[in-house]
């Protein structure tokens, strides 16, 4: 059949290509430039479209969907403002390595460059915030581009990919071209198999360690659930301690004795001191982020470092390592376990016993302890109670950004991967609620909770309309301190308690707000009533907004202030006067 005789339009074949890529759900918002796609969606029933209320939310929803399933999240937005609204979400996905394919409408090819109505240079704008992007200039390149985009988004280090689709390309006719399997991209071929010599060397280093620590990150989650199983197996075989980054929570079961909790700026005392004092550090799928390293010059000064990462640009970026291993975490761990089993190395039991004894003294410091106050709900308490009520249920947690996010990371325990979605790299307020929608779409029967701050939740509150439309029983658990708490905390520590513009005046009545959107609203002031409120929230099969009024001035500890070293943490309010932040620390974010 000649192209002009073909019955399928570009839009039709786009939908076909999505179905061939096993896409089930698209999060989107229509507009002039993408009307042909909406028409093709209308005419079929394989692909489900979820209508969000803001394009940023479409991307976050797709991120939640992707992170909780391991699949690629798909977004569809119109040209111009549709595309620009998606930029925050795309940047978020890039920073956190989340696989997304975002389809953007574009003015017809003959108008590109003319400042046409709703024209934006979408490929130009999104170039630095995507893993890759495409402008499809002719319909014969369309199927191939879509399949390539999915391959790029999910392979190697995952990330967001934009396909910009001029309207004439969507309306022209052409036959569909099925994807080639296996994909052999002409230039993009990420290295997934590790160098066997390096695995041998790594096992040797690990076996001889006296004060070892595993430091595992989001790369384990990216690699798939098998990587978490293998990590758990390997860590248990060695008997060594392990810590996770914010992005890696769930990669190792939190209830295991070998788990030291999260590390970094708001990580535990034991995790950070173990990182500082270790002699062999085994980093798997973490990127030595500045929230982890603190002062680079003082970061884990006495250790030999092994770094496993699928992306060579993550290696030796911030911290020089002794043994870089490029490869996929699953394959690397498989090989390490194989070599370990074959060699049956004798680890230094005496040294390890002493190391664990030291760690236990740090653990005994009980760094997450907080003071209770009669009549006031402490945010930490609220999360402890929340965890108590959800721990035996099939649950997923998302968060917004701020103190509540850090407390959620500290006080909720993650036993499995893909259960925890948070905006780590970009720190996007407004991420959590739409992400929770995406999670709920993927797991309709699970309990999905967005742990929120009262400031963050207002950044995508319009999505209450979406959850109402699709009857998504997402729970929004607001720790309402009437402050941009994280900002207030920094102002207290760094700017003489001058709380400039961080007080949230004129907050809405969240209960009435929920009701206005057809959701259920609950409020709780008293610690004694909290359990009942949480139980009621869980029992309701609707979207629920819970306004938990918490202590306004509580700070999040432990904290490594900017510019400080791991062994220089603030453990509580008493420490802050004793350890003022340095001038170099002040300029850091």
């Amino acid at each position, binding site marked *: 059949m000649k192209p002009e005789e073909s019955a399928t339009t570009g839009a039709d074949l786009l939908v076909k290509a999505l179905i061939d890529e096993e896409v089930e759900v698209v999060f989107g918002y229509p507009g002039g430039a993408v009307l042909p796609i909406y028409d093709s969606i209308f005419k079929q029933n394989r692909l489900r479209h979820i209508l969000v209320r803001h394009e940023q939310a479409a991307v976050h929803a797709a991120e939640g969907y992707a992170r909780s399933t391991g699949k690629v999240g798909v977004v569809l937005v119109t040209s111009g403002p549709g595309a620009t609204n998606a930029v925050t979400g795309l940047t978020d996905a890039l920073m956190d390595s989340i696989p997304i394919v975002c389809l953007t409408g574009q003015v017809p090819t003959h108008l590109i460059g003319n400042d046409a109505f709703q024209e934006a240079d979408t*490929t*130009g704008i999104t*170039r*630095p915030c995507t*893993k*890759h992007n495409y*402008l499809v200039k002719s319909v014969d390149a369309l199927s191939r581009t879509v399949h390539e985009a999915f391959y*790029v988004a999910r392979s190697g280090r995952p990330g967001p990919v934009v396909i910009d689709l001029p309207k004439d390309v969507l309306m022209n006719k052409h036959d569909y071209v099925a994807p080639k399997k296996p994909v052999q*991209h*002409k*230039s*993009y071929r990420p290295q997934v198999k590790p160098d066997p010599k390096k695995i041998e060397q790594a096992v040797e280093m690990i076996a001889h360690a006296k004060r070892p620590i595993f430091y595992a990150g989001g790369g384990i989650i990216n690699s798939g659930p098998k990587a978490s199983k293998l990590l758990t197996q390997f860590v248990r075989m060695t008997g060594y301690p392990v810590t996770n980054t914010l992005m890696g929570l769930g990669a190792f079961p939190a209830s295991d004795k070998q788990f030291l909790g999260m590390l970094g700026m708001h990580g535990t005392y034991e995790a950070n001191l173990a990182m500082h004092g270790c002699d062999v550090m085994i980093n798997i799928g973490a990127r030595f982020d500045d929230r982890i390293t603190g002062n680079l010059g003082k970061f884990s000064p006495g250790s030999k470092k092994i770094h496993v990462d699928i*992306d*060579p*640009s993550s*290696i*030796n*970026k911030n911290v*020089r390592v002794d043994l870089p291993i490029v490869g996929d975490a699953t394959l690397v761990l498989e090989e390490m376990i194989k070599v370990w089993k074959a060699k049956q190395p004798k680890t230094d039991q005496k040294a390890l016993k002493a190391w664990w004894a030291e760690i236990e003294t740090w653990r005994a410091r009980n760094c997450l302890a907080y003071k209770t106050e009669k009549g006031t709900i402490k945010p930490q308490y609220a999360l402890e109670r929340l965890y108590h009520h959800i721990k035996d249920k099939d649950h997923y947690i998302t968060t917004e950004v701020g103190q509540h996010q850090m407390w959620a990371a500290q006080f909720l325990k993650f036993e499995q991967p893909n259960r925890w979605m948070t905006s780590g790299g970009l720190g996007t307020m407004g991420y959590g609620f739409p992400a929770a929608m995406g999670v709920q779409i993927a797991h309709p029967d699970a309990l999905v909770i967005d742990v929120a701050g009262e400031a963050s939740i207002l950044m995508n509150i319009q999505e209450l309309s979406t959850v109402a439309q699709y009857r998504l029983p997402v729970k929004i658990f607001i720790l309402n301190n009437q402050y941009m708490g994280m900002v207030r905390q920094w102002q207290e520590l760094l700017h003489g308690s001058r709380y400039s513009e961080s007080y949230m005046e004129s907050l809405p009545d969240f209960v009435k707000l929920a009701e206005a959107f057809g959701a259920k609203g609950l409020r709780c002031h008293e610690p004694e009533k909290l359990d009942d409120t949480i139980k009621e929230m869980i029992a309701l099969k609707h979207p629920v907004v819970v306004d938990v009024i918490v202590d306004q001035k509580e700070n999040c500890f432990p904290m490594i202030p900017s510019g400080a070293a791991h062994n220089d943490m603030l453990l509580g309010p008493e420490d802050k006067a004793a350890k003022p932040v340095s001038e170099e620390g002040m300029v850091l974010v």
Partner: protein
Amino acid sequence: MQELASSHTISVLVDNEPGILARVVGLFSGRGYNIESLTVAQTDAKQNLSRITIVTSGTPMVIEQIKAQLDRLVPVHRVRDLTVEGPHIERELALVKVKGTGDKRVEALRLADVFRAKVIDAKTDSFVFEVTGNSDKVQTFVGLMETLGLVDVGRTGIVAMSRGAEQL
């Protein structure tokens, strides 16, 4: 431990597609790397490939990052650091316009001869020279012309290649 910055010449083989140069340049500006020289042109019409030659400077850690970041771009086929991968040749071409009469004109022509620069345009009161060589030579020649009536310079930036039979 302060590492010293040094200059590196990097060859990058890329798909010749719209936006590729913007990707490379955006990477350098976005991450705060230097570009001392950059040249680009299609070099393989059959496979539609271009070769980009970049001269940049940085500490060893930064140079390693630059290479890894370049290699990560989807349309990039190969990245080679000519400075560390054995001997290589660098060449640059400049067009140099000099205006003058009398002694200065004679002296300009004499120096051009020394530098093996070709006269590619001549009027009674001006020359355009074409000079090629490594950047030092080109720079020296341009410097000398400054006192002899230099009015315009156009430089291509550096192209480079490894010595011997090996392909990029």
